[in-house]
């Protein structure tokens, strides 16, 4: 790259342009690798599942892809709020437990509303308010203590997570909340589309065809409601992060907290909003699990925290803050789900899943770090 420094008054910079080319390539590659990895993973499982089963089992069936989508919804929902929080250089360790709380709260609310004579739809709305509202209270608590009392997020959300877990167990009387209205299952298990395999088959929109016996096994739901709801939340979060002032300030706070403060960004308020957002997406996950299993569970989200953080990290969000995308988190969640499902279909013992997912997390971070070396990211002092 050469510059013609024609006028002495121009502030051309010799060292910026070559950097920007390398920089762009590096950014492009780093964004690409997760996609490539996901694609390779799918190809690997298609081939290996086919070979090991002697050609009788196909990895990439409609049913299997839908199962993967349903399986990632809770991890992804937890990961969405977490993405915002981690981009702003925070962490929310309470999300899994908040999801459990939301599951219990929504089940209690739905049961109470329905028993009080409310129609099913309104009962579900009551469940939504209970789940998201209850979760948001936890987020508000986290945010206030982190922003105003300057206690590290790690400690606050760890502590509040334990508290929330205790409250969930108390409220559910140490068990699952059952006795929910019978029709509730449909909200969690019906789908936008159905496909009936076979000669008499075809697509059914919105309404599940009345089938019995053998025909039932030929029916595949496509985009079950939890998947649709999650997709809507994903789209919303992408918009907020990329196109709004809220998203911009989230990056700014993660990039340079002091700069954000000095330029007049209401940093404390923003941090509180981030933790409310994180809890709220966990609240949606809790409600969806109640709808899907027709019961509230005080432990349903407990194991999901670390999976959601893994998805966020595989998706390229920097734990130091300042970098990351929603689509990255979606890919991260997909990679984990494809890995887990694929290994199950290969009849690999379950504990290998942990070993593989763990290795992928570490490799993902190594790739991101090498990218930072290439683009010459300086220390964030």
């Amino acid at each position, binding site marked *: 790259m050469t510059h013609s420094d024609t006028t002495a*008054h*121009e*502030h*051309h*910079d010799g*060292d*910026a*342009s070559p*950097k*920007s080319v390398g*920089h762009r390539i590096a950014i492009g590659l780093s964004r690409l690798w997760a996609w490539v990895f996901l694609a390779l993973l799918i190809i690997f499982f298609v081939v290996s599942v086919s070979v090991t089963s002697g050609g009788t089992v196909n990895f990439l069936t409609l049913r299997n892809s839908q199962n993967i989508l349903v399986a990632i919804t809770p991890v992804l929902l937890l990961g969405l709020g977490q993405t915002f929080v981690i981009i702003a250089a925070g962490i929310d360790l309470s999300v899994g437990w908040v999801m459990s709380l939301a599951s219990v709260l929504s089940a209690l609310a739905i049961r109470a509303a329905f028993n009080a004579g409310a129609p099913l739809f309104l009962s579900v709305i009551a469940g939504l308010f209970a789940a998201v509202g209850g979760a948001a209270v936890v987020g508000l608590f986290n945010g206030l203590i982190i922003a105003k009392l300057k206690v590290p997020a790690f400690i606050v959300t760890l502590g509040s997570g334990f508290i929330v877990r205790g409250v969930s167990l108390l409220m559910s009387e140490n068990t699952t909340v059952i006795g929910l209205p019978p029709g509730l299952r449909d909200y969690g298990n019906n789908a936008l589309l159905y496909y009936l395999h076979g000669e008499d088959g075809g697509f059914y929109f919105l309404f599940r065809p009345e089938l019995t016996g053998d025909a039932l096994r030929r029916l595949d739901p496509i985009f079950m409601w939890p998947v649709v709801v999650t997709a809507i939340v994903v789209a919303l979060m992408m918009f907020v992060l990329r*196109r*709004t*002032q809220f998203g*911009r*300030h989230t*990056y*700014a706070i*993660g*990039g*340079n907290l*002091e*700069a*954000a403060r*000095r*330029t*007049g*960004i209401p940093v404390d308020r923003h941090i509180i909003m981030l933790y409310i957002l994180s809890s709220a997406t966990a609240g949606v996950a809790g409600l969806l699990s109640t709808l899907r299993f027709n019961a509230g569970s005080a432990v349903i989200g407990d194991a999901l925290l670390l999976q959601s953080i893994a998805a966020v990290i595989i998706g390229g969000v920097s734990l130091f803050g*300042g*970098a990351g995308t929603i689509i990255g988190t979606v890919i991260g969640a997909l990679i984990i789900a494809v890995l887990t499902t694929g290994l199950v279909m290969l009849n690999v013992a379950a504990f290998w899943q942990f070993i593989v997912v763990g290795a992928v997390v570490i490799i993902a971070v190594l790739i991101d770090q090498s990218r930072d070396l290439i*683009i*010459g*990211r*300086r220390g*964030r*002092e």
Partner: protein
Amino acid sequence: MTEPILTVRNLTKRFGGLVAVNKLTWHVYPGEVVALLGDNGAGKSTLIKCVSGVYQPEEGEIRFRGERVRFNRPIEAMAKGIETIYQDLALAQNLDVPANIFLGRELKHRYLGGLIRMLDEKKMTQESQQALSSLHIHFPDLAQPIESLSGGQRQAVAIARAVYWDARLMIMDEPTNNLGVPEQKKVLELIRRLRDQGVPVILITHTLPDVFAVADRLMVMHRGRKVTEKKTADTNTEELVQYMVGARDDTLHEPGLPR
């Protein structure tokens, strides 16, 4: 004589028993670059932080553009047009140039009566481009994050941001620190350009060649006090060093001896 844009009168700032700024009186006039000199711990930064709203002085008054001011927070000083560029520049390293110029004051499209507000990236990029060209700064690409820019370019972004947001007085803390020689020259040129556009600049520095290169006047502090105030043309490096180490003091009527 023209009215000073900034007047500091009998300003005192203490930290416990330490008097960081001691009954200091000082004027800055429109259209000049004034250097603020002094050894480490002389009280330069404390004085500046009183002016920019970071600290609140115990005694004395500050007048800006003829009006008595008292800032509780830096943002209040910024609202009046006092922009301070610290060494760390207050830029978000991970965001690009327009995002930084508009940080905290983003331009937005409004839809559905303001219910949906989207960032107006196009307008922000255009305005940034204009703000930079008005200072004769040209970047090949505005869309790269600050962390991939050179030190001088970052300085330029911080200055352009202040100018865009209508700075009436620019305070710059060691702007040429950590820069290579060509970049130092560019930053000094920017300071001259600011002055030519009518924005007075207070330049806090240790670097005496910078003072002689751009400053019209200078003020030297020693142990919280003003020891001299001169036109740059009336002094030289050797004399300034003596003021800075406390070997000379115009407030005493004879040349002072180091204590």
